[in-house]
């Protein structure tokens, strides 16, 4: 793990990023304000065979703080990005492992993911608008759980579907 620490320090030093390891040495925290820099870092991590574990978003007034959590051989690299325009470039073209977590950012926080190869809704029905974290929806609508005539009619309306 030590050689990996040295390697990571080199990479991040070259990008002039301020980073620090936590006490235990198994997670690294970095801050970025530039979206292009995020993509450059993602490209480097991709060549090092990292994977995306998760992306967290947090809204502060009109701005968002995103935290990209990458795993690299047991070290969690947490990259913080501050955005004010509700949009980020997708890293899914680099990391297939980011596919779902980016789509979740859209539906829960209404953040536009630019250049995502599969920008469909993840869990919530299209009838529910985006950016819903703090809004109340009844359980049956949040779960698309009404197994009623309405749902069945929608299934039947899909072209070319064979009903067993």
């Amino acid at each position, binding site marked *: 793990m030590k050689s990996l620490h040295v390697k990571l320090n080199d990479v991040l030093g070259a990008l002039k990023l301020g980073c620090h390891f*936590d006490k235990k040495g198994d997670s690294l925290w970095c801050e970025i304000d530039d979206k292009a820099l995020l993509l450059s870092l993602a490209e480097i991590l991709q060549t090092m065979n990292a994977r995306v574990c998760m992306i*967290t978003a947090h809204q502060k007034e009109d701005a968002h703080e995103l935290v990209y*959590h990458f795993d690299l051989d047991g070290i969690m690299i*947490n990259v913080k990005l501050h955005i004010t325009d509700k949009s980020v470039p997708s890293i899914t073209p680099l*990391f*297939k492992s980011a596919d*779902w977590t980016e789509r979740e950012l859209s539906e829960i926080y209404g953040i536009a993911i630019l250049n995502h190869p599969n920008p469909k809704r993840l*869990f919530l029905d299209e009838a529910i608008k985006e950016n819903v974290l703090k809004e109340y929806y009844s*359980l049956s609508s949040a779960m698309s759980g009404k*197994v009623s005539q309405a749902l069945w009619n929608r299934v039947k309306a899909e072209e070319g579907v064979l009903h067993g």
Partner: protein
Amino acid sequence: MDNTKVILGPFDVALEEPVYFKIEPNRDGKTNKTVDMINGFVHRGIESIVLQRNFLQNLIITEKVCALCSNNHPFTYCMAVEKIAGLSLPERALYLRVVADEIKRIASHLFNLGMLSHLIHNKALMTQFLETREDFQDLKESIWGNRMDLSANTIGGVKFDLDAKLIASIKTTLDQNRSKIEAFIALFETDATLISRLSGVGVLGYEDALRLGVVGPVARASGVNNDVRKRSPYAAYDKLSFDVVLQKDGDVLSRAKVRLYEILESMKLLHQALDALPKGDIVLPTRTLIPEGEAISRTEAPRGELVYYLKTNGSQKPERMKWRVPTYMNWEALKVMMPNNSIDDVALIFNSIDPCISCTER
């Protein structure tokens, strides 16, 4: 053949939980060309609910996210809170956390293997797996008073202790079941009918496993080792010895074998943890206020890596809390596993990632 689609779900007896599969068959009408899956039938908005509860109330909410991984959720959540508060736990608590987690892992793996047997219509084998699991359910009941939600963890330690009698009963259960697990392994290694039914079904190759970032037994069955217990040890795992089980073929059979061999490794871990159980407190004596901060923590749940992120602001409720469960990563792999397999095997392949939809969707 026209491009007629076959639908399975969202609510179907072959599925433990609701998912909506849209299957496009090949020209033969018997095998899958593509499989599209629609989720969201058990989305409860728990990530929003936890922001409205305090840190102790969230112990209960996190335990209820999922039934089979129920212990890992409060466990990983506690680890994140403890990191922010800078707590170092009594040694005994760290070992007891391993004990709770490994007993849950054995029961969880046996349940998945029971479901596999059910889906290939081997009812006798299913009965044997579930009867074996029953011993571990009874064990959980005798230690924690519950068969699924153990409520074993709390911030700063654990809520249960083991006396000599309970330690002896755990060891007896392990010893009584070890030969049964070995017999299951022999069956999966040598039984021609079983092997021909399961091998080559739902294959996920090494490269695809790496590319998709899959975790847990799904990754290890394709030869990718990202067992959190080894790669980023927590609790007492760095003091205990065990092997990471890897297979090469990446099919349904390999995933079943990984789970079977892992049960033996869990038994090994339990024996070691019980023999080396340090004396002392099980929980920190005073309750701490949680300061402002943020942390990330992860554990190896029965289905793979579970990640929690927590951000606090000095109040006694989280400012942001997010978690990602193993099935969330393994799901996209189904789109690699399913094509050109028999339509009849959709439910079998689906079961082989040991899906947990209620915790994936939260």
